């Protein structure tokens, strides 16, 4: 949200901005983008044992227009890359991306012709969650990191899409 950051902060807008950030981080709605093994761990995070619902995130919206967060869970193949970009473009601002797993973060163990070496070549990523697959605790840690980033406003200073790979 670049608009609010430009205002001269006084007491009222400061409180308003904090309230908006509080609302945003406490009900981030993920879009279903489970691709491979990491999707199973994402489903396990949503299930009763690890319970993503305590963060207000159990509603995985099927439609990207209603979602705030895209958790890219799994390896992105060359054929899937345009679909990923299209779904990301359909999401409304503000939107965030968590790259879950090493295959999404950097291509993982599949350094070959078929896998995009890091989803940050296609979409800008806010948090990377390593692991193969990352356990639900790692995913929850990455979600809490994202909440922190929203809280401190670091999100408004997002970098441009990398495009250069890691």
């Amino acid at each position, binding site marked *: 949200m670049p608009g609010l950051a430009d205002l001269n902060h006084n007491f009222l807008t400061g409180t308003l901005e904090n309230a908006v950030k509080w609302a945003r981080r406490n009900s981030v709605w993920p879009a*279903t*983008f*489970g*691709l*491979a*093994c990491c*999707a*199973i*761990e994402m*489903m*396990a995070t*949503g*299930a*009763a*044992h690890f319970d993503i619902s305590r963060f207000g995130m159990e509603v*995985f919206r*099927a439609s*990207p227009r209603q979602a705030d967060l895209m958790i890219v869970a*799994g*390896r992105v*193949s*060359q*054929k*899937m*890359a*345009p*679909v990923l*970009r299209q*779904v990301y473009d359909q999401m409304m601002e503000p939107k965030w991306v968590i790259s879950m797993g090493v295959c999404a973060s950097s291509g993982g*163990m*599949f350094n*070959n*012709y*078929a*896998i995009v070496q890091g989803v940050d*070549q*296609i979409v800008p990523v806010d948090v990377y969650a390593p692991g*193969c*697959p990352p*356990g639900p605790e790692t995913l929850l840690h990455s979600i809490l990191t994202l909440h922190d980033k929203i809280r401190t406003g670091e999100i408004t200073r997002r970098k441009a899409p990398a*495009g250069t790979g890691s």
Partner: protein
Amino acid sequence: MSATDRLGTSEGAQEMASRSATGADELDREGGVLRMPEGPVLDPADLIVEVVEDETMIINMGPQHPSTHGVLRLMIELDGETVLRTKPVIGYLHTGMEKTGEELTYLQGCTNVTRMDYLAPLFNECVFSMAVEQLLEIQVPPRATWIRMLLCELNRVSSHLVFMATNGMDVGAVSMMIYGFREREMILAFFEKCSGLRLNHDYIRPGGVAADLPDGWRDDVLAICDYIPGRLDQYDTLLTGQPIFHERTQGVGVITPEQALALSATGPILRSTGLAWDLRRDLPYQYYEQLEFDVIVGTYGDTFDRYAVRLNEMRESIRIIRQIVDLMPPGNYRVQDKKVTPPPRRRINESMEALIHHFKLFTEGFRVPEGEVYVSIESPRGELGCYLVSDGSARPYRMHIRDPSFANLQSLPTMMRGGFIADAVAVISSVDPVMGGVDR
């Protein structure tokens, strides 16, 4: 080609074309009509489809869709709400694993193969290891084989629990998702104790298993065996006797045994039609001949039968696991062949020979004699096979995995023909494809 050119991929020819632009054979195949080799077409009455070209609609489901079980894209031709033709478009998870398998040593191969069918990773590792061991012509010690069987049956239970969770959720019982994953956590906790990972374990390796079972494994496994059957009875109450579940699954997605055989469908799909083909019973491997278990068979070949087959297969697996707990012998957990198995870590400090063997095995890998072999086992989805060609070096020359879901997806047009679009979701989830195995 620059990166942006690569991103603009097209699947034009893979998509479903209008009726006038599709050949007769292809129309039949997408319409689920099989020209059986023996003679005329099956179900001639269904063939009288008076369809005017522009009255039908081709819609696209996926690849990003909450109910396509991963990245499966379905193109469906509809006449109102009735499905006429179906064309699955796959490849959205193609990882080039068979090519990567040619670059990795045999010891590293299991890390690659285990990520194909990611709901049943131990089966992938098992079939690859069995193929390598056949080429090496070594005999795995009995305890290792029994450990493999124990873990594979536990993996079968956890895979079928995911089926129950996703099938229930797709049909409408959203709470089933929570229950299925709750039971799975117990099994995954045991896997984490054995191998260190909840998924994609790389535990079963050529020569045996990576480590012995942890202390107190009997108590853990028996606790699972005591807990799960009670839960399965609860699922019976929630789903099996429920009239709404019956309405949504009985008579939906019917396939006959001849059609299933012709389409190379194996596993619960084939067994739900009434044909009792289970590789553990009919082409036995490991020590399944010493165990007592039933092969669960359906009658009508519909979605409800596939659900019932998998539910009861879980009960049979628990029965098998109890027998394995009683029959587990002591002994080595990997073959004591210095050329194949790395030495225990502490011996590296003591013995020069152990150090050299460790180094050679982990850098170059062990060499496998020239030959080719095909090994297959019964995974939760059907026949999982590994065709391995070796040229005498330390890396496979060609590693091909016959994945059950890849062949099972071919039966989708036949199952969905004539049904409603709302039934499509139930049918897909009853086939239970895992796209990691389909696309490899």
